[in-house]
């Protein structure tokens, strides 16, 4: 069964054009890791026209995240910016492109969206 991340890129490839990216011409690389395995997608944006391929290659902006996290992002359950500030998602290259590319992600719709819940909450000094 396809993961939410795979479904997201498949759907993106079928979308063809995204009017909210008409200002953008850029290539964004996604490096999604799953244990020892890594999957790569390239999303080429040409004035809003989208072209999605598997594999890496040259890009102006690179996103790197764990698959479970990225599944959460593409299903609107995880906020990508907070994940970046936590150090769970990294952005290389042109960060402005990444901000606009987030328009491709489904929204964290309020009825599904829950703020991140931390796993350990103990203060100590080592």
């Amino acid at each position, binding site marked *: 069964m396809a993961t939410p991340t795979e479904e997201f890129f498949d759907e993106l490839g079928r979308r063809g054009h995204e*009017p*909210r990216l*008409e*200002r953008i011409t850029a290539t964004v690389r996604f490096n999604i890791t799953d244990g020892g395995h890594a999957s790569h997608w390239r999303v080429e944006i040409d004035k809003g026209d989208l072209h999605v391929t598997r594999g890496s290659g040259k890009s102006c902006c690179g996103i*790197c*995240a764990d698959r479970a996290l990225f599944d959460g992002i593409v299903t*609107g359950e995880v*906020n990508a*910016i*907070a994940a*970046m*500030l*936590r*150090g*769970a*998602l*990294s*952005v*290389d290259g*042109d*960060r*402005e492109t*990444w*901000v*606009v590319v*987030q*328009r491709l992600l*489904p*929204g*964290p*719709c*309020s009825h599904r*969206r829950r*703020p*991140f819940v*931390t*796993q*350990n*909450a*103990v*203060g*100590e*000094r*080592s």
Partner: protein
Amino acid sequence: MTDGLVQTLDGNTFVVSDPQGDIEASFTEPTGLFSYDTRFLSTWALTVDGRRLTMLSTDDLEYYETRFFLVAAPSSVYVDAKQSVIRQRTVCDGLHERLTVLNHQEQPVDLAIRVEAAADFADLFEIKDNLAKKGKYYTRVDDGRLLLGYERETFRRETMISTTAPAQVDEHGLSFDVRLQPHGKWTTELHVTPASPGVGGRSLMPKPSRGATAPTKMRGDLEKWIGRAPRLECDWESLQATYRRSLVDLAALRFSPVLAGGNSLPAAGLPWFMTMFGRDSILTSLQALPFAPELAATTLRVLGDWQGRCVDDFRDEDPGRILHEMRYGELTAFEERPQSPYYGTADATPLYVVLLDEYERWTGDADLVRQFELEARAALGWIDEYADLMGNGYIAYQPREPETGLENQCWKDSWDSISYHDGRLPGFPRATCELQGYAYDAKKRGARLAREIWNDPEYADRLDADADACKRRFNQDYWISDRQHYALALDADGSQVDALASNNGHLLWSGIVDDDKAGAVVGHLLGRALFSGWGVRTLAQGEARFNPVGYHVGTVWPFDNSFIAWGLRRYGYKEEAARLAAGMLDAAEFFEGRLPEAFAGYDRALTRYPVQYPTACSPQAWSTGTPLLLLRTMLGLEPLGDHLVVDPALPVGIGRIELLDIPGRWGHIDAFGRGRVEVASRPRLRRQLGDPVREKSKFV
């Protein structure tokens, strides 16, 4: 801020220390080295032979550079110091300090020099609200360097401390055993670098672009920034000093948000607000348009990129909404706070369209207006589709997450700022009056852009018709006939929240005031209840909640006054605008050219000098922008097609003003004016505007 603290800053990296240059932060005091909303140094204390130093003088060389002259002796007229220490501090992608120790004796001396260092990695919000940390600290001594670290799950922040002179490094600092020859000198450089490692150790924040020669480049950058701005020639020296102070402070407050492609926009203010704020960045960019139009371009780009795209109650986000505040600290990272970014502002969205139009009118940069057409339309769409919470056609606000959201989503954002005449607070939603003015102006300006640049006359007609209908209804629903001013807000029942407040002045700026009501509004703004002599108070004397030292209920806010002055000009009240400018520029002289965020609303005759509000931020972006906008209103600068109209109305005492090389779609134009408007003369501590003697002495 606490008196006596010394600030050195570079965008959103800044140091606040005591006058010796030392930092001994408590968990509740905003002293330390801060970067991206995190405190990377909470202790930074210099001792010589175990003793703290005594300050002789502290020089602010530039906003990013401070020099401390210290002596290693108790301060006494009877004892000459045997050694002195010069501590030269530069803030640029971190903290850099050059320590120089001079021996004034004819004998050699052995000294134990020590720098104590620690970092609590507090989020600014934790300091403000006194919260405890949830992660673990770690420390490493490695290759002569000290690494202080903090981690919580994947979140890591680190401070690396290094020195050019050999040192004994331990987990709490660096020690130097120094032998100084007679009249000898010893020097070292200390570097403190904050880091935010992300996945695979890669930096979360962009790499510093300036490198090792940073201070030289920063000096060059500042000179260029000042050189690009119009030149002010003026008989009144105080205004020249204020103008220069404003330009330098605006340069200091420029900051490049992590995700903005290296361009800079104004951060809101030191120390709590060194980040991107929708409202503050837009209003400051508007004030600075005739002087530094590039700030507006970046603000429009960055806020457009970040425009809300979905409904998210935690962040008060809606499609088309312009952000309120972006933060980078731990509480935001773990979503204990919603600033990633937070969208709870009801004014930034219409003001975004106002800035886009005003920017094009000044610069002629139609390309940017075309590039951001979609964002501007989405912003205009937000006004009708998402902001009309009461279904009565007015922008209203109500936080959707009361625990973390902002109660008042207008510029007067403290809890008690919106009240009835009798002091009661209205329920939610609240539709404050100035929001309706901004919406009206946004639609009028959006209509111009649609007609002239987006080539969509139908949309333009619709926006125009909407705006006209809005103005008609507003002048019925908000006007209080028996008090002859506009209500501060409508409450949830659509009833008038009837206090008299400075918001009436913003209505003039937006143009929503019916011509036959403008005279009464102006009468209130410059009447005794609102006008203190220095400026218009946020809330009028006589209102139940009026308090001259209440944050939004009686203090005078310089930025508020600058927009009111613009509003007075818009309705043709030139002399009244000059009076406001005179009061504010006189106040600026008392603050050595740096207007604070707010000052007390006491009557001018009572205190004779403006009394600073105790916790006001300074420098603060829109206070820094205030003298700039006042120059515009005094000179009556107004773009008209490809020309700049100059129609001066200046207070007597200012003498002659020349503003040279004003950039815009016309190329560069000079504006001239001479002070002729009489302003009321009151008891004064020094010669001030309105004093005819000064002009006489200059020109007779």
